[in-house]
């Protein structure tokens, strides 16, 4: 009985937390190369790609996610906005895979410029950016 009450409380609290989350203006967008045929991704697909559970785009092409460095505020915003997870949760997730030999976190680049460059030149990569770094070689992927 006590157990059920606790679970019920946790559930209620989480509902409240999601209700108050306002849909802020996009300060980080998901990008692919303009040569990449991908038009859109679901939140679940993006999550699977960034957590290493899926290594292909829905159309079957290989996908390699790229990260900004851990100190980048854009990175923190990307994970909390699109994956609903904090940086420490992401770190814990990759620790599970790394220390069991089952996977390694995405490679990182040190700046928005470097991210734009890498994604533009590699159609099988996916990245995220502050909109300031967008150019014609990149395409924003809307996430439903």
């Amino acid at each position: 009985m006590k157990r059920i009450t606790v679970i019920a409380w946790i559930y209620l609290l989480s509902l409240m937390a999601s209700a108050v989350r306002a849909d802020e203006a996009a300060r980080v967008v998901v990008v692919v190369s303009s040569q990449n045929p991908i038009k859109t991704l679901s939140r679940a697909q993006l999550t699977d790609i960034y957590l290493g559970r899926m290594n292909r785009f829905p159309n079957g092409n290989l996908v390699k996610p790229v990260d900004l460095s851990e100190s980048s505020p854009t990175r923190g915003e990307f994970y909390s906005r699109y994956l609903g997870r904090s940086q420490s949760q992401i770190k814990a997730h990759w620790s599970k895979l790394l220390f069991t030999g089952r996977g390694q976190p995405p490679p990182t680049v040190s700046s928005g410029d470097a991210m734009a460059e890498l994604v533009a030149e590699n159609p099988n990569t996916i990245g995220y950016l502050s909109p300031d770094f967008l150019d014609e070689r990149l395409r924003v992927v809307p996430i439903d």
Partner: protein
Amino acid sequence: MRMKIGFCKAHFAQGLMMGKLIIAAAAVMLVCVTAAGAQVTETPNFSFNGFGTFGVVRSDEDQADFASNLFSPDGAGYTRDWSPEVDNVLGLQLTANLTSRLTGILQVVSKQRYDETYTPFVEWANLKFDITPDLSVRAGRMVQQTFMVSEYRKVRYATPWIRPPKEVYDMIPVTNADGIDFSYRFHFDGFTNTLRGLYGTRDVNIPDGSEANARDVVVLSNTLERGAATLFACYGSFRLTMKDFDPFFDAFRQFGEEGEAIADRYDIGGKRFEIMSFGSRYDPGKWFVMGEWALAKTRTFIGDIEGLYITGGYRFGEVTPYMTLARARPYSDTSDPGLSLAGLSPEQAAQAEALNAALNEMLGSATNQKSISVGVRWDFIRNADLKVQYQYLDLGDGSPGVLINRQPGFEPGGSVNLFSAAIDFVF
């Protein structure tokens, strides 16, 4: 009692020789694969990572120890008021990406061992080859994935607790295997299903001359994930032999048919040790709840044990309070009438009585306890967390629960209060 300790020691001892053989075999495989594959030439790259925990535990039971596991020599309580031995661990890992499809890992772990040293031992040493992006095979040393977090249970930064619930995670005596495994993953309707199989062997040599052998280790597990939800199921089995116990059961066998029957029922020579477990987890990000149930079966003095736990927590930013309810109980008899003394000479009767008492001591020390833990995790800097946890153990009637190193003044049953604090890190 001494034999129980012998068994305990067996678990932690890590025989390196078998590992070396397996690593050599893996190296041969590597040469074959690279020669045959001749893939896109890529420069191999190596990465070095580590994890660790610095922690202390305090127990208010001063006649027995709360330890890292049943096979540790000591811990908090009788041996020390504040014990760093229970949770302290350091792991270092070298990962080699040899080609885009071939990866090798070597992970060495240092923590308190059966002989009270911190001599590092090989936890992982294998080569993984990706046949396709979703099908891989490995050869070398692997951790058995018996429970949901078995494989990374020593990486405390990756787990919600100070330590995995002992009521479930202490159920298997051998946690590694030297052999081969496969992992096959497929996607359907937003689900990801991962099927894994492991076959191997594990010889554990102990400096004092005794040894334990796990043979025909088979572990089959399946993980089904969709979004925040995970379902896990596993069946594991191996044949366990510990020659250390032979003299004890041979002594029973000297008492004719009755003694033979008792020895056959409880001895541990090559008998099958089986375990099945089910687990589930729901973690949408802000909060999580997870639970596991497992049943271990063996026709030996170790007996059959059922373990389960449920854990939940809520993340307030970088602060995560959590709570765990857990339970372990024997499923088989915890006592045996033993040899009947009727018609024995006084010397024989005395010997039979001593044997009966020793057997019942072994059967009676089966884990039977409930526990409740409340704790909080604080991710105070990148790559590290601080956890504090209070745990209340309610020991079953006549059972020492998970406590070891029991002193003459120890009274089974009752309750124990534990306080733990730890810093976990990864790099």
